[in-house]
């Protein structure tokens, strides 16, 4: 068994280095009026790992992701990021700290080309002011070139060269998902959040997406947190899994450990009533 609990990190079976703790969620509780979406949950995310959050519908997975991305602010508990307690932030501020995400329902600019969509992911890396941008002068020009270069590397990486100039609205679903991933990657995030990246895909598209997620993690060492329903996918992809049910954490560990966890089996498969 791998020592996944030590602070210094460890090396996975396929040779990837997992580092120390990147983010720690401490006793998070999130309430919407009287509804408790997340109830006293704690877990950590390590540098370089693929961390999955799974659970049945309504378990609070997406709420958890929204807490990480700063969209929701938990009533109790704290988020420790890079060793410091994170103060209450707006989502765009969180994004600037190196956290990028994709959405469960695709949130791209439908009328814009794939290239332009991905360029929006570079927004935080552009410093030129309005005047410079408007006049296409000085910094603006230079920045555009640098950013375009970064974006082209991602286009190459995700193999979407053939749709570079295509408006997003004309793309099939699977490719839109890939473009969304590209946009998130363009931000060069420290932590990448993927909200159901495989939902609604056919088998082939799923396989492609799996490969890209693994490749991203492998090539750029991007720490990835993903929510997914497809258990096969989760078990194959992730290093560690958090299992949620009704806002509670009912399991946490390697896919192997989670698979054999009594409570998880109960939540997923139900129990026999005899």
């Amino acid at each position, binding site marked *: 068994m791998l020592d996944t609990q030590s602070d210094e990190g460890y090396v996975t079976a*396929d*040779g990837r280095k997992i580092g120390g703790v990147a983010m720690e969620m401490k006793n998070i509780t999130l309430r919407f009026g009287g509804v408790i979406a997340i109830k006293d949950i704690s877990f950590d995310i390590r540098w370089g790992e693929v961390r999955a959050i799974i659970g049945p519908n309504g378990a609070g997975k997406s709420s958890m992701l929204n807490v990480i991305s700063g969209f929701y602010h938990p009533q109790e508990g704290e988020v420790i990021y890079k060793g410091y307690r994170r103060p209450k932030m707006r989502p765009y501020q969180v994004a600037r700290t190196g956290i990028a995400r994709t959405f469960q329902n695709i949130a791209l600019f439908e009328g814009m080309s794939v*290239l332009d969509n991905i360029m929006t992911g570079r927004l935080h890396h552009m410093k030129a002011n309005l005047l410079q941008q408007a006049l296409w002068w000085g910094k603006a020009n230079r920045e555009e070139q640098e950013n*375009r*270069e970064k974006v*082209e*590397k991602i*286009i*190459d*990486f995700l*193999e979407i*060269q*053939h749709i*570079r100039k295509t408006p997003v609205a004309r793309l099939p679903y699977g490719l839109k998902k890939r473009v969304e991933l590209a946009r998130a990657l363009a931000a060069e995030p420290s932590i990448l959040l993927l909200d159901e990246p495989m939902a609604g895909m056919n088998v082939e598209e799923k396989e492609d997406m799996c490969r890209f997620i693994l*490749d991203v993690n*492998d*090539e750029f060492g991007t720490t990835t947190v993903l929510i997914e329903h497809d258990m096969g996918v989760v078990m194959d992809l992730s290093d560690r899994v958090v299992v949620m049910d009704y806002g509670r954490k009912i399991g946490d560990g390697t896919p192997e450990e989670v698979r054999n966890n009594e409570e998880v089996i109960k939540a997923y498969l139900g129990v026999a009533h005899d």
Partner: protein
Amino acid sequence: MTVTPEIKLAPEESSIPALLARNARRFGMQTAYREKEFGIWQSWTWAETHAEVRAMALGFLALGMARGDYVAIIGRNRPALYWAMVAAQSVGAVPVPLYQDAVAEEMAYVLDHCGARYVVCGDQEQVDKVLEVQEKVTCIEEILYLDKRGMRKYDHSHMNWLEDVMREGRAAETRLSGELERRTAELTLDHTCVMLYTSGTTGKPKGVVLSNRNIIVTSKNSSEFDDLRPGDEILAYLPMAWVGDFIFAIGQAYWTGFCVNCPESAQTMLTDLREIGPTYYFAPPRVFENMLTTVMIRMEDASPLKRRIFNHFMGFARVVGPRLLDGRDVGLGSKLKYGLGDLLVYGPLKDTLGLRRIRVAYTAGEAIGPEIFDFYRSLGINLKQLYGQTEASVFITQQPDGEVRSDTVGVPSPGVEVRIADTGEVYYRSPGTFESYYKNAESTASTKDPEGWVATGDAGFFEEGSGHLRIIDRAKDVGKMADGRMFAPKYVENKLKFFPNILEAVVFGNSRDRCVAFINIDLAAVGSWAERNNIAYSSYQELAGLKRVLDTIQEHVEQVNESVAQDAMLAGCQIHRFLVLHKELDADDGEMTRTRKVRRRIVEEKFADLIDALYSDKDSIYTETEVTYEDGRKGKLKATLEIRDAKVFGDARRMAAE
């Protein structure tokens, strides 16, 4: 036909690496290669290319590549892979390009057969395949790869990144450059240039050994034939393992010094074509067909005004365009109108297709529909046909400018002798004729006779008057009719299949007194016709049996008969009676191969009752056919088929003889 004089080539023209050095001197600053990467066309001049190839060759030496080693190259068209071939030649090794879409099994056979010591792979996918077969194929010593992505975790004890190999080569320049120059200087016209495996439709693939003489003399002749120039541009997108790609993108490119452009990925081919606007272009008929279909579909959706302008000018171009292209006089009025059409329709259309700058375009491989062929020619695109095979270093015959037609494959290429055997089979002898099949003396001897004549396996004849060769069929399918006239089913079937309404046709008549045919309608084409004419039908079978459909098909058959009758030799192949089959010929029922070629024998056995009926006086026949559904269940189709007589046309010559 005359015996060609021995062609003299300068020493600087006796191998591909020598040509590269010559080009680096002669056209140093001109662009040799372009590849789109990261959204931008990257380019390399001849001088840069020379330096890159040299670094790679030095790297190969550092790895211990020996004279006569075989180096397999697997991947999509990329400059660095072309360079790897030339670099291998520079150190005296033989490049063996492989089909990148081959499955591991097929790859294993070829790698093992040639005993490849080195394999250069495009990317991780190819490396994986090679690793998969490496247990069986023990000859492989080093795997090199071009694209680093995903390769970090692999065991690199016998694996190298191509960039590293080049770096090591540069580092060892002082130590190895003497050896490299010696090895490159040793190369003569008789050294093996490349080994290409023919796709094995029959049995195992065979390694065709082509010498420097084969490739260089053929490239010289064909480049001069079409007046290729240093400023020309081609798009290299066809498989690197195919002889045509080797001749166009290496042979002719190095001989002439034109620029080879590699697309960004397989899917971006059409966009890249448009961006580059090649001047010299090759595509199989299928590509031209698809392009035309796309244009037509888009025109259907265009506004009525645009559609009318398009139809008007295209109709006009069909009459005038080909004649203009052949340099014949059409009168000032027509010329002006064609100019207007060029401004409004032809020019923009060619631009969209990326064919505006084409000076020479070729198609080959299978018959191209006259409609499709004429469409491109009427636009002013110099589309021509050629006939060739791997064993000939491509060129056997090709069409000279001004003598282009859709039904011939042209006159013998320069330096090529062609003769027709008594059996009708086409033989050729040329400077491009291959040396041998690798490790297969038996096949070599049965294909190439001691005098150097090679059997093509195709039957054909020279047309009287024009001297153009016409290919009619595979030689083994050609038979004789009862009265001794030639029976060439494929020739007639192709003519039938050029009608969009006809999907498949099978013609019978071997050792019979007349020909009959089965026809398969094209559900998409006929179905949409029915829809437009408010004709209701519930099944394929019903549609195929409709009187109006039969009338249309009968018209098509009679048109084909009329055109077949023009041919004195083949006039006997006119179709006397035909029926439209009640089911589509299907690979699941064994009637076709998976690549959609009709299995004549099986169809003949399975529908023997229908053939008998066609040769009787009956005008309808009841039949039951077993079919296999997609889930594997079997069922029976019952149908009564109407048999039609088609009008046949007189054969002037035969009548005169009688």
